[in-house]
């Protein structure tokens, strides 16, 4: 009996020593800094990555699915609804979206509904319908159901302007363990820090997660103008007015000859 239990323990030990299946994701972004210059018309960044064993002899469990969520700096927006009042269309109702991402891209290799179960997607905030978008409703701040008309309108408008997107084709697997993700940075992106959250799924479960970051900054002249307009409003206004007067004066001198 004593011997039997010893054998049992040895078997148990052997099982524990055998490497468990675990993987990690290593990613690299083509460019960590997007510079908004006077010729900026948007840019496409590429995120490359590989899936590799966590420990030297760990087993891999393909096929893998990947979801990349990119979020921009937070901002507060108001969604307004028009209604006909006395024959004209007036904003009658509005809802404030508090500290929501100004940019939100959910990129994956399959439609997210096929990657994991709805409750997993909701818990991990994957997809435009599951991402937490808190609204100010009376004294409370809370997210609503995805079918809420203001929430639907908000994500629709942000998608139309190119700042929100959900793409099931943006991630491609080059081999079962090497992937690339195309991150679109449209021309109207706000400046600031962006977080890239990479989540790896196998058989509907989250198996590895990593993150990266990128920065969108105005540079040179664009930054100078934007900063002066914000920090030195009065001086900025005076200089703009002076510029207007000079332009006007210059034109009248040039054209007064004939």
């Amino acid at each position, binding site marked *: 009996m004593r011997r039997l239990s010893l054998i049992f323990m040895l078997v148990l030990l052997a099982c524990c020593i055998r490497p468990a299946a675990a993987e990690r994701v290593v990613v690299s972004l083509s460019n960590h800094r997007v510079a*908004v210059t*006077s*010729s*900026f*018309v*948007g840019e496409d960044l590429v995120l490359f990555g590989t899936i590799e064993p966590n420990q030297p002899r760990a087993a891999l469990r393909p096929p893998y699915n990947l979801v990349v969520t990119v979020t921009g*700096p*937070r*901002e*507060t*927006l*108001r*969604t*307004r*609804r*028009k*209604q*006909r009042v006395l024959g*004209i*269309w*007036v*904003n009658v109702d*509005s809802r*404030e979206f508090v500290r929501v991402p100004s940019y939100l891209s959910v990129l994956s290799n399959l439609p997210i509904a096929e990657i994991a179960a709805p409750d997993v997607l909701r818990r991990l905030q994957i997809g435009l319908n599951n991402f937490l978008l808190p609204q100010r409703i009376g004294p409370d701040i809370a997210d609503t159901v995805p079918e809420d008309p*203001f929430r639907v*309108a*908000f994500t*629709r*408008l*942000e998608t139309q302007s190119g700042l929100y997107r959900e793409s099931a084709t943006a991630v491609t697997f080059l081999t079962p363990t090497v992937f690339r993700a195309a991150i679109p940075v449209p*021309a*109207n992106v*706000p400046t*600031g820090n962006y977080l890239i959250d990479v989540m790896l799924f196998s058989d509907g479960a989250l198996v590895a997660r990593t993150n990266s970051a990128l920065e969108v900054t*105005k540079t040179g*002249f*664009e*930054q100078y*103008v*934007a900063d002066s*307009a*914000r920090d030195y*409003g*009065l001086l*900025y*206004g*005076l*200089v*703009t*007015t002076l*510029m*207007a*007067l000079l*332009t*006007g*004066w210059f*034109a*009248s001198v040039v*054209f*007064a000859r004939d």
Partner: protein
Amino acid sequence: MQIYLPIADLPVNIFLIFGMGLAVGFISGMFGIGGGFLMTPLLIFIGISPAVAVASVSSHIAASSFTGAMTYWRKRAIDIALALMLLSAGIVGTATGVWLFTFLRAVDQLDLMIGLSYVTLLTVVGALMIYESLQAELRTLKGMPAMLRRPGSHTWLHRLPFKVRFKRSKIYVSAIPVWAIGFIIGFVGAIMGIGGGFLLVPMLIYFLRVPTATVIGTSMVLTLVTMAAATVMHASTNHLVDAVLALILMVGGVIGAQFGARTGQRMRGERLRLLLGLLVFAVGLRFAYELVVQPDDLFSLRHVRRE
């Protein structure tokens, strides 16, 4: 060629903006107006937010009216005393306008207010101008003098107290209507991003009986100062003046204005007023259409603040 606008935060085609400046400048030179009532809607149409459009156009109008004012100054066709009196009220009007602009923006009714003011002002002024110039055309056809000026006719406006004499314009009127007109022009200018030239010229002619010789030059001085003041105030309160956008617009605008002025001088005054009336009326109808017809999207977004 695309250029990124630092305040409007979007890239635009530099030639498109320049072309718009040129075209509106041509019209403004031709009719002796600022052209803001055309430029602001055009900018909104190409995707610039109404608030940035209104704020930036004011500096564009300042540039084109300065060119015009210098030309009239050389011709000694500016009544400085009248302009100064209109101005003292105009600045107050502009400040009130910028304050209301900020307030309406906060309560989500700015777009509506801009739309409503455009509809009311443009259709009414346009219709009056069409009516008046058509009557003048008819009188010309019958062989009568086109301009029916009644120098002796006095209205109730002339019976108000605080009478002031304006030597250059050869008028003797109460200061109250002068202040009122100045206030209205400064006010609507700040709210609507227009210089108000198309409003001021008829007001000066019909209410104060300012002679045609000095009316346009004086109106341009007023437009210049109210728009310069509006630029400074918009820049320091709302931080929404896009200097890059304004520069492209004003360069196009002042060139266009020179050619427009030459075309305008070859046309008869009544014909010119009829054309301007039709233009003003058409823009007014366009705004009315937008307010009355159901919009494609009932929802819209507004940025409150960055975190």
